[in-house]
């Protein structure tokens, strides 16, 4: 980070708007019946429509429209009852029609907002002027085919929702926070698989800087095709420094499209012709206006799941969870469902269920690189364990041992924790007389430590506790041990 001198940066304000390309999780393409499955052999999923043979006509996929409606409702936007597909004209070999079918003046969704936890400004409302449907182009492979370029049109015609923000974001941190929230939301409502490696979720960032206090927007540059949150952060940070240095050295920012090079950690200008931005949009005569009826919108509304933002608020309100925990638990629907199921099966032990879901369970999932949906320890099994902590059958420490055993598959069924506790003899010793005997034995066996304690060395007390716990194989109730030891040492 060569020149990120805070004094310099503080004189400048960063302004960012994002355009996110969200590939919709339909089985078939937006205008043809070809499959959208990723990874097929080249051109085996490119139909006559996708390769633009003469005489073909596009027919819109209802599933793509339905996903757009779902998104519009989820962000509180307006579902336009009538929207229009337009041709965006440009020439490139992976776009065989010579135009991309998109939406221009009349997009399917206008308005709406996404609530984002800004690292510096708290709860931030990011406004979305529009979201429109369009098709994806094919792919050009520039490896050497005897000096030629290879074209794969499998991806051509994959449905995409382009979601545009106002320039509401003020730092790369906020841009990433928004992108993560949106990424969570589109998966939550089931319109996109969110797979960034496969290009299902890509962002373009419009970045400009202005003197702090100014309300005039600076000239912006657009950084294309950011397909990871880390690259987004790096690319924006680089671009902000580049623009500030340029202006402070007396230069001016030129509006242009730039590409981020993750290997060199820099953005660079794309060599695009000056005419490239003149797309000469016009309504596509092959496609009459898309009309969406009230009944369709109402049905989609009725099928929407509880949204992450509402669920976060409910977790804080009903379960008294810290906001940060509620936010982490609602990162995905599967994780939230796991927590809710565990908390309710454990008889409302929400706080401890949250701690275990975010602690032991998440750590074990990360260690083994598996998804919560395939967790070897089910939510009811976790609940079975939490109940035994709550009723004093086992201590928190022993519970971790039981959890590991459940994870390893040592017992089946919802009562797996009980089975393991019994089989391994882990039940906590809470019998007063039994603990007194163990404590008395420990005192008798360790006269030197007892003497130290009596001479005023407080640490010796903890050492004796350790001996007692070891003698009970960790099963003695710690609170009782503490009280009895104090009493016996008088």
């Amino acid at each position, binding site marked *: 980070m060569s020149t990120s001198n805070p004094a310099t940066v503080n004189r400048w304000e960063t302004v960012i708007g994002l355009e996110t390309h969200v590939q919709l999780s339909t*089985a078939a393409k937006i205008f043809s019946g070809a499959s959208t499955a990723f990874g097929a052999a*080249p051109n085996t999923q490119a139909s006559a429509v996708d390769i633009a043979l003469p005489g073909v006509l596009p027919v*819109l996929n209802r*599933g793509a429209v339905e996903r757009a409606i779902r998104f519009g409702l989820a962000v509180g936007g307006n579902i336009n009852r009538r929207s229009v597909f337009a041709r965006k004209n440009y020439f490139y070999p992976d776009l065989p029609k010579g135009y991309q079918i998109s939406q221009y003046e009349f997009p399917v969704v206008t308005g709406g907002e996404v609530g984002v936890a800004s690292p510096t400004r708290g709860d931030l409302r990011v406004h979305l002027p529009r979201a429109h449907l369009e098709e994806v182009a094919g792919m050009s492979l520039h490896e050497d085919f005897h000096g030629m*370029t290879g074209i794969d049109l499998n991806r051509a015609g994959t449905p995409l929702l382009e979601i545009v923000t106002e320039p509401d974001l003020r730092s790369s941190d906020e841009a990433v926070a928004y992108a993560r929230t949106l990424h969570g939301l589109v998966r939550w409502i089931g319109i996109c698989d969110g797979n960034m490696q496969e290009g299902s979720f890509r962002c373009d960032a419009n970045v400009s800087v202005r003197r702090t206090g100014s309300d005039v927007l600076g000239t912006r540059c657009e950084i294309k095709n950011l397909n990871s949150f880390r690259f987004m952060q790096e690319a924006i940070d680089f671009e902000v420094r580049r623009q500030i240095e340029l202006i402070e050295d007396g230069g001016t920012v030129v509006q242009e499209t730039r590409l981020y090079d993750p290997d060199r950690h820099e953005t660079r200008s794309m060599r695009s012709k000056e005419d490239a931005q003149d797309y000469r949009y016009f309504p596509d005569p092959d*496609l009459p*206006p898309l*009309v969406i009826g009230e009944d369709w919108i109402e049905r989609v509304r009725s099928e929407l799941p509880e949204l992450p933002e509402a669920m976060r608020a409910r977790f804080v309100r009903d379960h008294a969870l810290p906001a940060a925990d509620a936010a982490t638990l609602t990162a995905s629907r599967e994780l939230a469902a796991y927590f809710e199921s565990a908390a309710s099966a454990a008889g409302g032990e929400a706080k401890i269920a949250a701690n275990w879901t975010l602690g032991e369970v998440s750590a074990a999932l990360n260690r083994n690189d598996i998804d919560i949906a395939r967790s070897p320890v089910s939510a009811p099994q976790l609940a079975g364990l939490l109940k035994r902590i709550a009723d004093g059958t086992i201590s928190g420490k022993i519970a971790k041992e039981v959890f590991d055993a459940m994870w390893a598959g040592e017992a089946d069924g919802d009562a797996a924790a009980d089975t393991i506790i019994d089989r391994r003899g882990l039940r906590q010793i809470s019998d007063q007389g039994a603990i007194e005997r163990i404590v008395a034995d420990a005192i008798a066996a360790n006269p030197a430590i007892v003497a130290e304690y009596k001479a005023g060395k407080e640490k010796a007390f903890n050492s004796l506790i350790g001996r007692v716990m070891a003698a009970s194989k960790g099963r003695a109730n710690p609170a009782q041990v503490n009280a009895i030891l104090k009493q016996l040492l008088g």
Partner: protein
Amino acid sequence: MALTVADVHRIAQLARIEIDAAAAAQVHGKLLAIFAMINELQAVDTRGIVPMAHAQDVMLPLRDDAVTEIDQHALYQSVAPAVEDGLYLVPRVVE
């Protein structure tokens, strides 16, 4: 803003149409006549009228989200000038 011959050349370039000076002058005249007609049309008061996106008053038909196509790339590629490993080959383009 009047359309110039330079605009005609630019539009032709965007559309990848090769055009010489004589043809450009001819097209320029025709386009100016079209713009004159559009100017006449613009005298009509269209306030409150939804812009027309299609000549026919029809709604877009929709298809169900189902895969109905089979792999026919061998057939499609039989007329392609150059193919390798299932890819269409085109003159090298580098962005």
